[in-house]
């Protein structure tokens, strides 16, 4: 499970490079999120624009990451592709996360 981070003044953008967050990698994802956010900025935006597929295990791992980070960080999401968006809407998890269309709208400082 490969994650890439990119910091602005107050936000850490974590980009998932893999195209799937599924049962095969759910635990690795959670561990990688912990490693990539420790000691970084409080605000974390998870860029999911490369992720074409997520299943219930993957969704559980994203929720677990939010819980893991809670307190020291806030976790927001950006760039949900159609299937990922569908899973968040059906489970109503879209009401639990701040969801941005893409990283540029989540972090305007990035564009300027």
């Amino acid at each position, binding site marked *: 499970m490969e994650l890439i981070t990119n910091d602005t003044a107050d936000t850490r953008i974590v980009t998932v490079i893999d195209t*799937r967050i*599924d*049962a*095969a990698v759910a635990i690795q994802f959670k561990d990688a999120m912990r490693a990539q956010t420790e000691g970084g900025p409080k605000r974390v935006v998870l860029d999911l624009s490369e992720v*074409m*597929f997520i*299943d*219930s*295990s993957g*969704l*559980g*791992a994203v*929720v*677990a990451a*939010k*819980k893991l980070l*809670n307190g020291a960080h806030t976790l927001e999401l950006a760039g949900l592709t*159609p*299937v990922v968006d*569908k*899973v968040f809407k*059906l*489970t*109503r*998890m879209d*009401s*639990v996360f701040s969801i941005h269309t893409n990283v540029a709208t989540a972090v305007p400082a990035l564009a300027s």
Partner: protein
Amino acid sequence: MIEVETTDTAISIQCLSDTFEVRNSLKTLMNDMETRDYLPEERGTVELVLAEVLNNVAEHAYEEMGDGKIELDMAYIPGGISIVLQDFGKPMPNGQTPLGMPANLDVEVDDLPEGGFGWFLIGELAKDLTYVRRGDANHLSFRMSLGE
């Protein structure tokens, strides 16, 4: 170890209850749908439901042993697909599929559910879900409407 058979109107696949075999099986099934001109969103919805039922077999019927046999038949029918899934693992608790209720999200962050979404998603997206235990085998069948 995946075995695949295709006909004009169906694809059958045999695999083991390992998460990476499940992943490769899903890839094979999605490639087959793509060659039959199903749209990306239709394929995504089917992949989601198939991932949930297959991972459920791997995690619960075979208790994450990774070497249980799974047989899946997907038939292309007018207006959608019809699925029959067979495994030889443990039966469903109480002889029926879990109800799959929507999760209670009106809680503190620390209390948010990290699981229990699978059967809810299956229930939302699949139709005519039927489960029977026959001998030492689990049979699950359902339909999905596509192209609506």
